[in-house]
């Protein structure tokens, strides 16, 4: 009886693992026609974007390019990366494009990056103020 219960438990533990490991194989298999449709849809969408738009392009190797759309051809997008120090243009062929989004800056000009930078600046300034205050208190007390 004990052997039977042990066997039952072993089967119970192993069986869900087998089922789980098989699931992604079914989900990841993607028919080729769908990929072609994706490419055409993205190309159509890109065709409607205005030059100068801020965009976020994700490539099939999961590289993200953020920048300004400066040129559009039948085969590719040309993007000026939005970086601190200027970098060369990047050409992203539609065949390598996985996702494309237009990024619309908020009317006030605020962005997450800018908010973080401002927050960091304010925090650093406050810390600096506290430091000066500490020095004043410590040395002033003598």
């Amino acid at each position: 009886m004990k052997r039977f219960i042990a066997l039952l438990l072993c089967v119970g533990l192993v069986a869900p693992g087998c089922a789980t490991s098989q699931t992604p194989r079914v989900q990841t298999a993607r028919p080729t026609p769908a990929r072609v449709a994706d490419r055409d849809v993205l190309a159509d969408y890109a065709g409607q974007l205005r030059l100068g738009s801020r965009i976020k392009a994700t490539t099939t190797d999961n590289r993200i390019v953020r920048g300004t759309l400066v040129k559009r051809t039948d085969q590719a997008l040309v993007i000026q990366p939005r970086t601190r120090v200027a970098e060369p243009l990047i050409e992203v062929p539609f065949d390598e494009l996985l996702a494309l989004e237009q990024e619309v800056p908020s009317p006030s000009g605020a962005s997450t990056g800018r908010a973080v930078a401002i927050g960091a600046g304010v925090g650093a300034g406050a810390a600096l103020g506290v430091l000066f205050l500490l020095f004043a208190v410590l040395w002033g007390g003598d």
Partner: protein
Amino acid sequence: MSGTFGWLSADKSELDSYAGGNDWYNRSLSGGVSLGWYWTDHWKTDIEGGISSGAELQAYTTTVVDGRPVSLRSSYEFATRRLAISQQYQFYRNAWFHPFAGAGLDLTWEQTDRVDEFFSSLPFRPGTPHPTRTELLTRPFATFGFKAYMTPRAFFRTDLKLVFKEGVDETLLRFGLGVDF
């Protein structure tokens, strides 16, 4: 390249035999310059040099004089010069805000001035000065902070540096300005 100033605190608990006293000195102003080289967009080797202003610390111990236990107050003043080399990792690439973290080796030349005074019913004794002593301390350190760029190449930076020797031995909170070439 960057220049920084900051607030240095150091653990000197080995000097004071009375538990519960203040065994850190924390009135030292520090200044320094660092030069770095980026091997990649993220990895950087940094060499820094700096000095710190004199900071006082009172330590109390018990000793025996003429067969009687007496309290001894030692007044220390510490000042340091230091050289450090580190490897740092900078998060993000070509952005306006870069957190960073690093670790390295810190060489500190610590100069110590010491004057002793006895507290007892013995006849008054004037303070006994000791000769100035300079000791070289070699310790590992870790640092973490961020750089916020004001222009494409000029930045504000701040970091906290922790120097270790059987636990955290020194803390240095720094602020500064720098430029990338």
